[in-house]
């Protein structure tokens, strides 16, 4: 009990606390005002309902967020995640149906094996990530510009693969990646949970997380300690590339088609926003849990808007209002202001002198 309380008080948990509160508020709103939002039924042995949708639709963004969190903590940013996602999906679709873009509608014989359809795109994503990492870590180019290069060119590459067509396909084994179910949950959700756990293990159960934070927060000091900042950064961008690649496979498999132009468009914004809402600092402490909650907040908001049928032209205004509230809740000053108001209202104008509120040991 005591240690549990201690944990609740620790800085890390404090950081995640408020995003969790925000998420709960959004869900609570739906609980009361959106009928059926919390209904989960079982169809063909799968869970089915809005809450599952949030997880399922949020899965690709969660993947991106995962990579982005680490990159962001190391003092960088990766704008190219959306493009890598598109490349990976495009390549997978191309491998499954190579002639489609040039008008040949047949599938290759024998059909492309799932291993190839998954492995090659992921390999290419690793290469893309390595390219980013190389520019940032070894050529010392500012991360935003270094990854902008691939953000622009990457979409071109993806379109080059699909010739600008939306390559659609049917491939049962591959469709499982983005559309299958495992333990009643959509497979992307399961995959994401596995990846989160893996990342958590790799960063928090080894020294890696600490190294990332050190390299991000004080590169000079880290160099003096012999931390291999370049190699660590390279690895992070590769990891981010890999996560984007996986997300690309999920999306492509889920819609059974590769849309080189639109897949993952503007998703880097969502990913970065999730990371920041989650309390990760650019060059410093990161919280995986916070980032996950951040993405869930954004996805819940989207699902809520769609489910409630808010007119598309006002959607953005709603989004703006909710996000600013979510962000404000996290601000200590804002909460003080709020509780200050409440308190003044209660004590009828009599302000409590600051020193009266003493720390209780």
């Amino acid at each position, binding site marked *: 009990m005591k240690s549990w309380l201690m944990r609740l008080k620790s800085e890390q948990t404090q950081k995640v606390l408020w995003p969790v509160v925000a998420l709960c508020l959004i869900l609570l709103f739906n609980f009361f005002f959106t009928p059926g939002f919390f209904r989960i039924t079982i169809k063909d042995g799968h869970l089915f309902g809005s809450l599952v949708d949030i997880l399922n639709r949020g899965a690709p963004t969660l993947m991106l967020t995962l990579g982005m969190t680490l990159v962001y903590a190391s003092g960088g940013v990766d704008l190219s995640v959306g493009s890598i996602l598109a490349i990976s999906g495009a390549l997978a679709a191309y491998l499954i149906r190579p002639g489609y873009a040039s008008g040949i509608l047949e599938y290759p014989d024998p059909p492309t094996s799932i291993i190839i359809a998954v492995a090659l795109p992921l390999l290419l994503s690793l290469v893309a990530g390595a390219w980013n990492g190389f520019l940032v870590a070894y050529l010392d180019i500012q991360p*935003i510009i270094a990854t902008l290069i*691939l953000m622009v060119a990457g979409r*071109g590459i993806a379109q080059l693969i699909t010739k600008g067509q939306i390559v659609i396909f049917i491939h049962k084994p591959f469709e499982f990646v983005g559309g299958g179910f495992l333990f009643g949950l959509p497979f992307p959700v399961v995959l994401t949970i596995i990846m989160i756990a893996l990342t958590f293990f790799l960063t928090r159960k080894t020294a890696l997380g600490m190294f990332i934070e050190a390299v991000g927060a004080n590169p000079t000091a880290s160099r003096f300690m012999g931390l291999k900042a370049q190699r660590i950064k390279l690895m992070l961008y590769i990891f981010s590339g890999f996560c984007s690649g996986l997300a690309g496979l999920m999306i492509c498999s889920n819609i059974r088609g590769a849309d080189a132009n639109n897949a993952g468009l503007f998703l880097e914004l969502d990913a970065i*926003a999730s990371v920041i809402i989650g309390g990760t600092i650019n060059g410093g402490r990161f919280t995986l849990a916070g980032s996950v909650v951040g993405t869930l907040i954004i996805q819940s908001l989207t699902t809520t808007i769609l489910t409630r049928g808010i007119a598309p032209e006002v959607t953005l205004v709603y989004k703006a209002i909710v996000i600013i509230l979510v962000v404000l809740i996290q601000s200590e*000053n804002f909460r003080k202001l709020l509780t200050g108001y409440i308190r003044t209202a209660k004590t009828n104008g009599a302000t409590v002198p600051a020193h009266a509120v003493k720390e209780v040991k």
Partner: protein
Amino acid sequence: MKLRLNQRNIPILATFAVFVLIYIVGSIMYRNFFSLRVLVNLLIDNAFVGVIAVGMTFVIISGGIDLSVGSLVAFTGVLTAKLVSVYHVHPLIVIALALAIGAALGFTMGNLIHHFSLPPFLVTLVGMFLMRGLSFQLSLSSIAIQKNPFLFSLTSIGIPLAKRLKLPLGTAIVFLIVVAIGIYVSHFTKFGRNVYAIGGNEQSAILMGLPVGKTKIMIYTLNSTLCALAGVVYTLYTLSGYPLACVGLELDVIAAVVIGGTLLTGGAGYIEGTLLGVLILGLIQTFITFQGTLSSWWTKIVIGILLFVFILLQTYITKTSSLSARKA
């Protein structure tokens, strides 16, 4: 202004060198590339980007970022077009109103960022959503401004340079003036220097007794006001308002600023560099239009390659020349 030929000018000189280099290569490769018109077009076509980039330079030097710029340009455009065409308000009043709204948005964002210590990325992301959303509220489709003599004259006045070629007031000249003011503010005013101090080390700036909060609020107010001005420039450039205009503009602007040598981590950068950054991005596009045979995807890939080559050259020139400068 005295040109200080020291270490700190090297990145700018390198950037300038690369600009000239690309321009020469283009002139050799393509007919009509080497002409006054192409240069003037660079100024005209990128005027609205440049005006924002000046404001964004201050934001980035202070260690912040502003994502709301593209939406604000669109909003200003729609507002101007709607008030002028539908409600027949005099353009001058509309422009004043647009600038005031821009300033108000920046002021609000600055206050949120400062008083509640919120991350600029999120606050301005909200600004981006909000202004885009409000543009949709004003109009879902694009609105043309037709037959408004005042606005038309604004677009046609300019300094004649050659036959059928002038430096128009509404775009290029506004751009150059804003750059000049930006240079002045950044080098010669306390506000300008405080911006550098905040970006260099905010904690130290506070302890040195600099007005950090006020400066931050002013930075965002300035940037959004310039953005609204850019919106007006854009409106003059197209004589219309379109709620979907300038999607993703923020990235172009940020890229221009960063290519100009400003550090995204704050504390270092020059408006002169930003001017070059804007022109270089414009030049890359001009290059591609003159090339004229690329498919849509190759266009993107080639932009990426040119960007890469350019940055590589810039880094290389900066490194070698600062090495030799140190040796000397």
